[in-house]
């Protein structure tokens, strides 16, 4: 399983290039962190992996399938095996946490089950255990507009966990969390990946988190891959190069000013 991107390029509809000649291959069980300055194309890359965007040039094979050659039904099946954690969780605020989490399996449930779950949740222990691992179990029946930014982000992570995907994508999943919670969340994501032998790709703003938790780091800048190395080989020099234009040095957990 895993994925394989070959010479991928993506241009926005107004012609500005977002990614050029990106090649990236990952196999099942891998955990990859993507780092780079703001606007470097991290989100675009994750969106292509999530099959939300179609690359303008190049090949992509995700979970052993080419998403853009599939029928509607097969694409749906593929997508239900891909989970995307958004930076700003796209959850209707008036919804309850439990419904928001259950929505993760909509791709796997028949329609009648989805409708039934709106009236009374068909599965309570499932979402509950996801929230417990993220230290949020007391919020199970609260409304989402009663949560802080960090709590809402964790609900987004819980949803993806409940979905049990083969490919976990995370777009700055801990941007609104304090250091302790960030570590907890990342550790949970990685544990989840290992448990099911899935693949994890996470973009991160804070470099120290990436280096601490992920065995493989990919640096992107201006839409191109600058390096793709094991964490141990990523040196200060390489990092400084990557973030050359960022004022104030490297972004870490503690100096989120550059966010």
């Amino acid at each position, binding site marked *: 399983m895993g994925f394989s991107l070959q010479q991928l390029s993506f241009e926005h509809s107004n012609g500005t290039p977002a990614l050029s000649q990106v090649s990236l291959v990952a196999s099942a069980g891998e955990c990859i962190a993507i780092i780079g300055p703001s606007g470097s194309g991290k989100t675009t890359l994750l969106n292509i992996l*999530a*099959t*939300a965007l179609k690359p303008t040039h190049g090949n992509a094979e995700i979970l052993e399938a080419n998403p853009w050659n599939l029928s509607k039904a097969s694409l*749906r*099946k*593929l*997508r*239900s*095996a*891909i*989970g*995307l954690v*958004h930076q700003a969780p*796209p*959850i*209707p*605020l*008036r*919804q309850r946490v439990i*419904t928001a989490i259950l*929505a*993760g399996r*909509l*791709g*796997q*449930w028949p*329609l009648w089950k*989805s*409708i039934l779950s*709106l009236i009374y949740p068909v599965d309570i222990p499932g979402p509950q255990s996801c929230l417990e691992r993220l230290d949020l179990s007391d919020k199970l029946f609260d409304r989402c507009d009663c949560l802080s930014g960090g709590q809402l982000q964790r609900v987004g992570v819980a949803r*993806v966990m409940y*979905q049990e*995907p083969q490919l976990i994508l995370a777009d700055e999943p801990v941007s609104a969390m304090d250091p302790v919670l960030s570590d907890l969340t990342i550790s949970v994501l990685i544990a989840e990946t290992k448990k099911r032998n899935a693949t994890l790709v996470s973009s991160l703003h804070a470099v120290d988190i990436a280096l601490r938790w992920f065995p493989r780091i990919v640096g992107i800048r201006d839409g191109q891959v600058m390096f793709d190395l094991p964490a141990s080989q990523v040196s200060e020099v390489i990092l400084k190069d990557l973030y050359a234009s960022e004022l104030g040095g490297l972004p870490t957990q503690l100096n989120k000013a550059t966010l």
Partner: protein
Amino acid sequence: MAICILWPMLQLAQFEPMLLIDPNNTKVMGDFLVQFIPPNIQLEFLSLVLKATVETLAMATAGIALAMIIAVPLGLIISYSLSISRIGPTSDHQLAQFVRFIARTLMLVLRGIPEIVWALLLVRVFGLGPIAGVLAIAITYGGMLAKVYSEILESGNTLPARALILSGSGRVASFLYGLLPNSAQELASYTIYRWECAVRASVVMGFVGAGGLGQLMDQSMKMLNGGEVSTILIVFLGLVLLADYISLVIRKQLV
């Protein structure tokens, strides 16, 4: 210049203030008004009024229920293709446009003809009584609700629904979990407001034979029975206040 417009207007409207003080008319009107006080509170009549009131409320409620049965699919069709194509790419674009056009035109006709006209027509088909009123409300209010439902849904934020499509959800499910939750309160609130309007409309439609308080009032007026008319008027005003109150209470619960 104002006179130029005013004069023909007055002619057209057959504006004859003199009629107000014409002795024939004043006698009839005077006798009628004098009977207003005291209002008729005979038990027999009051029980008739109570029955008519319940009938009016039942008409309004049944009418709105049927209106929703029309409006929900109609509104969804109109906003579905728009919302769904905003949520994810669709291949049946042409068909969707055509269906939306038909639905929009249908809605316009349903709304454009006043409910009382529908009532008048339906009385010819189904006879006197509340059925005509219920259907008239269902038709016109169905159109109105459909329009407002589609507007509320179209202005919603599609990001949550689009995210659900990315995780493999079908379009209907992602609509229910992603788009509906934030719009649900507005949708329910407007529906309850329309129910309140339906109560008033039910009374008015009684004048063309659709049952309820209106029909009772029409009969009493035709017999120039001032006492009965004043009772019914008072009950009607009370009913409007009651409906207003109920609507407020339910809408508070929705928040």
